[in-house]
């Protein structure tokens, strides 16, 4: 239940979906459903609670399911970390995440857009999956832009910082005048 507590605590400004909104100074009670899920709106997740950070997510809605460490999100913006350093920012219409044993797996879908911190490399995709322990992003219907190149492919696997990639299916590269 530590993971659930971390979501609820992080959701300091969250709104409950079912109960009457609490006063701002009081941490909100999440809306607990009969199936054991908990929904919090306008919320933030940070993982882990201590040690090098792996990810931070802000979402319009976060639904924590009964499965330990599992959340569903809508209108999500994430920050992904490597060795405690932020390397990538990603936004999407929605997705799932599992936070367990010091690792995070994230699956996002719909208008996925990722950008490195220097804003030199950008990836857009229909689907995006990240496995923190493998430093690996896999994406579907990808469009990678950076360093004067514009790459498209059916699918691709990338390092979290987008500096390495392996793309397959209808690969097309165009040169661009500027990034």
């Amino acid at each position, binding site marked *: 239940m530590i993971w659930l507590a971390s979501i609820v605590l992080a959701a300091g400004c969250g709104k409950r979906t079912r109960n009457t909104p609490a006063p701002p100074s009081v941490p909100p009670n999440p809306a607990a459903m009969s199936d054991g899920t908990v929904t919090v709106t306008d919320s933030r997740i940070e993982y882990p609670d201590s040690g090098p950070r792996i990810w931070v997510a802000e979402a319009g809605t976060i639904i924590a399911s009964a499965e330990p460490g599992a959340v569903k999100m809508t209108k999500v913006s994430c920050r992904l970390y490597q060795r405690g350093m932020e390397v990538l920012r990603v936004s999407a219409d929605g997705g799932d995440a599992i936070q367990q044993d010091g690792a995070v797996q994230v699956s996002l879908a719909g208008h996925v857009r990722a950008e490195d911190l220097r804003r030199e490399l950008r990836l857009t995709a229909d689907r995006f999956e990240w496995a923190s322990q493998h430093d690996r992003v896999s994406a579907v219907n990808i469009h990678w832009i950076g*360093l*004067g*190149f514009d*790459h498209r*492919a059916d699918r691709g696997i990338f390092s979290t910082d987008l*500096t*390495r*990639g*392996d*793309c*397959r*299916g*209808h*690969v*097309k*590269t*165009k*040169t*661009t005048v500027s990034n």
Partner: protein
Amino acid sequence: MKSKRAFLVALLAILGAIILQALDFAQAATPKKVPFVGDLSADHFRFDTKQTPATMTYDGHVKLISPVNNTSITCDQLKTNAVSRDEITSIDASGHVKFSVTTVDKATGKPNYRFEGAGELVQYSLVGTAPIVHMAKVNGVAPRLTMTDLASNKQTIFSGEEIDYNLESGVIEGKMVNLHNQENGQ
């Protein structure tokens, strides 16, 4: 005193001239970076911008089209050392390579020669400031380069162990090269 000052001035002038010449030489020795412009398609693509040198590798049904010298290349694998679009200094194409390049007369601005090549290995690289196309015999398959004079339609066909074509000077060098002249289509 005057002669000492004159000596010092002369010495400084000589040193200055030596430094300027050294800078000129250093600039000439640095490969000219020509921005790459074009489209590529393939079945598979890998890149690593952190590796030194950086790599971009295309595999399977590779096709490159570039407006620079009206270039087209088809092959099984194409590898570049691209760090960015502006810093490609070598392209290696291998496996069933076919390419076509059209050069332009610098004085008139009109196309003057078309080069069509075929082979198992074609390498493009900047040697000093000169872009060189190098073709080599691989697995018993000798490279073949057909040069068409677009004014007369006359063709010269080169085949051999190795063929180097300097795109800047227009000089073709080779090893064990056979030469064959013909009218186009004959």
